[in-house]
């Protein structure tokens, strides 16, 4: 490692320094690196490896002890566990639904925020607010809004005469899943919008001007100029959001705790319950590796897609 640090030192000309100085520098550099090595190993690598190790044992206590080695049994159990696959199914639905809406709305918002409006800075500041809220606060807020007794949504919809009686928005499994996804959309759309806004601002305005001269309509310009040039930004944000959505936990923890009747139990929440409430740490570790594998597959798939689009542009 220290060799790599020394490498950029100038190797040519009369300035080449004696090796004593160089080793002293190398030692100094190593010392500087130690804290980050400790941090990376201690809080990133060690838990990752430890979890992998745990997943091969039947660990059913948080305290140290002798736990039987079970090989791949935990992984086998996962494959045979129907509850895992229904949790994966719900998570996939949540991921698809929330990410699709976030990207759709995000594009619209980004185009609006990029338009030469007056007070554009103010709109941008307002739009970023939902994203600035911690997820826990956002989830608690939506829990209040959707409350069937005193929630704002029921009050609004009855006053607009859209519904007659108060609805229990989180009361039935599928509706609750959609509502949780909407709360996630509300929070994360601004992030998507800002990513895409940055992408929009890299599109040279003369392309649009030239298209206007050629008589292209607004829609034509959007589909022929904006969208193709925004594609790589969209892909980046798609990768980020899909991976984040697949790991969804906190919003569910606050809003529904996986209920009703497990209707909103995502795979991450399921894993948490197995590991901590049931104290089945071996099984929980294996489950978290399942999540990692799914995310890795997604990431590889997306990176491929990204690479091919950038290649096309060049």
């Amino acid at each position: 490692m220290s060799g790599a640090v020394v490498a950029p030192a100038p190797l040519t000309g009369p300035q080449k320094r004696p090796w004593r100085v160089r080793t002293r520098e190398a030692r100094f550099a190593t010392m500087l690196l130690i804290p980050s090595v400790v941090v990376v190993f201690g809080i990133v690598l060690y838990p990752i490896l430890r979890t992998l190790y745990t997943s091969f044992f039947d660990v059913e206590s948080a305290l140290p002890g002798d736990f039987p080695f079970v090989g791949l049994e935990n992984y086998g159990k996962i494959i045979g566990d129907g509850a895992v696959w229904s949790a994966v199914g719900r998570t996939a639905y949540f991921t698809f639904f929330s990410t699709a809406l976030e990207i759709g709305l995000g594009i619209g918002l980004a185009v609006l925020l990029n338009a030469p409006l007056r007070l554009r800075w103010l709109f941008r500041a307002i739009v970023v607010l939902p994203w600035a809220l911690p997820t826990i606060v956002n989830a608690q807020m939506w829990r209040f809004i959707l409350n069937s007794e005193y929630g704002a949504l029921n009050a609004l919809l009855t006053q607009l005469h859209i519904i007659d009686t108060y609805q229990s928005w989180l009361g039935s499994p599928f509706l609750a899943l959609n509502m949780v996804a909407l709360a996630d959309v509300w929070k994360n759309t601004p992030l998507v919008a800002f990513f895409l806004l940055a992408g929009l601002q890299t599109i040279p305005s003369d392309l649009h001007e030239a298209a206007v001269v050629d008589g292209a309509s607004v829609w034509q310009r959007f589909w022929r100029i904006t969208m193709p040039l925004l594609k790589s930004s969209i892909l980046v944000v798609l990768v980020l959001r899909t991976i984040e959505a697949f790991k969804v936990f906190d919003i569910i923890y606050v809003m529904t705790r996986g209920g009703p009747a497990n209707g909103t139990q995502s795979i991450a929440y399921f894993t948490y319950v197995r590991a901590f409430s049931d104290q089945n740490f071996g099984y929980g570790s294996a489950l978290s590796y399942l999540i990692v594998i799914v995310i890795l597959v997604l990431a590889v798939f997306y990176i491929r897609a990204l690479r091919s689009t950038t290649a096309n542009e060049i």
Partner: protein
Amino acid sequence: MAAARRDGMAMRPDHNHNLTMSRRGFLTAAMGVGAGAALAACGSGSGGSGAKVTIRALHQQQAGYSASDIQGMTAAFMKANPNIKVENTLVAYDALHDKIVAAAPAGTYDVVLMDCIWPAEFAKKHIVADISAKVKGLSGLDGIFPGAIETAQYQGKYYGMPWLLDTKYLFYNTEMLQKAGIKPDQLATWDGVKAAAQTLKAKNIVQYPITGSWQQAEAVICDYAALVGAFGGRFLDDAGKPAFTSGGGVQALQFMVDLVKSGLANPAARTSVEDDVVKTFSQGNAAMALNWTFMYGLANDPKQSKIAGKVGMAHTPAGPGGKAPGVNGASALAITSGSQHQDAAWEYVKYLTSKAVQDKFATSSLPIWKASYDDPAVQKAGTPAVVAVAKTQLQDMILRPQVANYNSASQQLQVSIQKALLGQETPQAALAEAANAFTASS
């Protein structure tokens, strides 16, 4: 290993070291030791052996005692025991179990609040220490309600000292009942409650007369348990096998399902925990609900309730067999097995659970000591209406099953109850599914 690090032993090396120090240093140290010994002699117990120790306690937010109550008792304890410093952490009930488990390997906490459904699990997994010797050494142990003492035990051993004694009562809105011409006596049975709800609904006094905490959480098991007891059912038979799949267990769930189907119970009960019940009831959107003692104070507080002064509180209603047990919701203070200061922790536990301290804070939570309920000062502090009903209700409580895999079994039961309440499955089929969880890995 833990024993070697206890306060008394830790003093010794310091003491030897002092012998080789300068004269002044030696004198100072000797005075310190002398002062420590004097304090110990004053009766501050084994915690006062001279060395100052810090213990950490994990409490529950909003469980009888308020945060300021707990802070108050802790401050008084530290004043009486200057050698023990206590640092408190408070978390919500829903996070308490997982926090205890997650903190166990690090030994973060010395004292933890243990709900009555956890002793089996925590004992089996060695998360909390067996403190039978300490508890049995207390005088007047038989002066504690049996319902409280059994929640700290598992297989005859004590894994904690009971502290919070609570059960669910039936709360009702006196004004609504009066309007409908219903006498509170009618609420002594579940049939009477159902009939009252029908009258209230028919007279359009309230849209959904009954509510409950039936969210997918431990809360729904508590309401269900009270009904199981009333309908003469049991969770487990004598052999430890699930017994709620027939008889009272099924009737209890059928009763809940019927309440929802007929519109007598609020459909929102399925997404409510106890706090939500308080809000619904305090807003005047429910006439009757089961809830813990704390609702009495909140629903009578004009600042946050529209129905202050109109709150009635009664025993849990009886079922067809005449039984009316409340759900046992007691919690105990336990000492973690990883604690380095077992003796100091016990001093703290002993202090908080003592009759004197519990009597002093009776307004927030009623004592575990039977004698307290005849003390006029406690009756006044605990609100006479509450103490009167508590005194007899606390004699008869149903305990949720004490199995080591309680948490996962309970989750399955929660899901099953919800499926039945949503009409996805019949109570019979749903409960049979949950029974598997109790047998699978007990």
